[in-house]
């Protein structure tokens, strides 16, 4: 990659770090970038960092895949059959604006303190963006593709598998990308209250157990880096040959 492509981004990051550094000078509590770097090193040495990262990623994976497994078929039905849409859409639109964070008390009530509660919250966080994107993607499939397929005698589930799903896939992937972003936001919040492992727990524990703000900020930095990585994976999906036609080349 040519330097001119990533240098501006690096420059902005450098400015942010510099501002942080300046604002941290002289503070007894707010850590400098160097202190945070040392804290990350410490977490890596003791192995606690990877333990928390795995715990968070595990919950996100299960909740996310569960949501996809339900949201894509349901969204497809809503997009294809107006009756399904009329029946289900009002419920979806009413539940969707409720932040998954608001569900935390109920999640703990129903699932207790353990892996199930954050996983449930991630499921909620991911389900709605994917349902909405899938329904609109399927609804907007251009009729000439469906007509051509019918002309060749393709109907029913084969029509869905070979035409409707691939035609809606660019929309579905956009929904998945939004969903994964929200899931990563929510897992940290959920781990702060509903469980005692994961990156969210790392942050809240570092503060409660000894005001280790260098560890707090280290956790934040790691969360940011992983979120950046997850988004990169989703962007890779958008570059697959099967969906590139929709995003422009």
């Amino acid at each position, binding site marked *: 990659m040519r330097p001119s492509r990533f240098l501006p981004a690096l420059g902005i990051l450098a400015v942010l770090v510099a501002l942080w550094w300046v604002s941290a000078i002289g503070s007894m509590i707010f850590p400098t970038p160097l202190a945070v770097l040392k804290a990350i090193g410490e977490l890596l040495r003791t192995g606690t960092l990877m333990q928390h990262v795995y715990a968070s990623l595990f919950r996100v994976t299960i909740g996310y895949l569960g949501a996809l497994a339900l949201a894509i078929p349901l969204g497809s039905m809503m997009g294809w059959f107006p009756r399904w849409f009329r029946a289900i859409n009002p419920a979806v639109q009413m539940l969707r604006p409720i932040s998954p964070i608001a569900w935390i008390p109920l999640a703990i009530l129903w699932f207790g303190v353990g892996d199930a509660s954050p996983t449930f919250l991630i499921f909620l966080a991911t389900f709605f963006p994917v349902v909405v994107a899938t329904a609109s993607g399927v609804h907007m499939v251009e009729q000439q593709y469906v007509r051509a397929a019918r*002309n060749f005698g393709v109907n029913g589930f084969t029509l869905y598998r070979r035409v409707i799903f691939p035609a809606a*896939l660019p929309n579905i992937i956009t929904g998945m990308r939004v969903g994964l972003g929200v899931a990563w936001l929510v897992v940290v919040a959920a781990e702060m209250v509903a469980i005692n492992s994961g990156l969210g727990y790392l942050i809240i524990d570092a503060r409660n157990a000894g005001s280790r703000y260098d560890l707090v900020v280290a956790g934040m930095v790691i969360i940011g880096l992983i979120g950046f990585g997850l988004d990169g994976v989703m962007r890779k999906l958008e570059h697959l040959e099967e969906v590139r*036609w929709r995003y422009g080349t």
Partner: protein
Amino acid sequence: MAPDAKIVVRDVAKTFRTARGAVKALEGISFEVRESEFVALVGPSGCGKSTLLNMLAGFDRPDTGEAVVDGRPVLVPSRKGVLITQRGSVFPWMTVERNLGFGVDGLPEAEQDRLCRHYIELVGLQGFENAYPHELSGGMLQRVEVARALMAKPEVLYMDEPFAALDALTRLRMREELLRILQRERHTCILVTHDVEEALHLADRILVISPRPGRIQRTVEVDVPHPRRLSSIRLVALRELVLAELGVTSYPEPSAHGAAAMPASVPGQQKVTSGSNGNGLHGLPSPLLDAKKTPIGTESS
């Protein structure tokens, strides 16, 4: 009904309900198409010619009357009659090769590959087998469209302004390509167009459809062998005839030359069912004297 009629359209009518009331699109349409014949439906926009094609391909049903192919009324789309439109329906998420294979899913893979190679070669897309549609030009996409339709071994090709979205040069080239392909693999074809030259270039017979409600206003036999030269006296005369029938040209004086050039032009002439334009047969110009009306740039053949 003639014994060799491949397609029979009998007294078809269709009315659409819109917010502003009922619109009668087609009325009393009857015609027949022989096996391997190429028929063009020419008419102004909104005359219902696309609706007619949709009915023949099974995407729409007439209110009254029927569309019969091979002795059976058409009720649903099938690969017996494949429809090609200007909007294009080449699947953008599949390579050219996979698009071609789409219509022949049931065949063994070796047979699919053989057919695919044959049609890729026929439409001149060698080297683009693994390309995605977004990498192709508009003309190439319509070639894929045609090749995919032919792969399914349809008995009838229905074409709804198939080349209308292409630029003028590509359009002309595609007509020549289509004629070349049809010479090698004869199909029954019905073409809907408002391009009179395109109809004259391709069709054996032209049905002129009247404005709404669409009716067959006139049948014109294009009794000119291929390759056709659009600037030939005969085709220019036929062009003037069709344009006059569509009411888009008007000539002040009936011309003796024009009348002399006409007699053999409309064998099997039907009566003019709609007298919507005042010229009728008499307004025809002399193609010999009216040289500036000769289409320019169409002398490729």
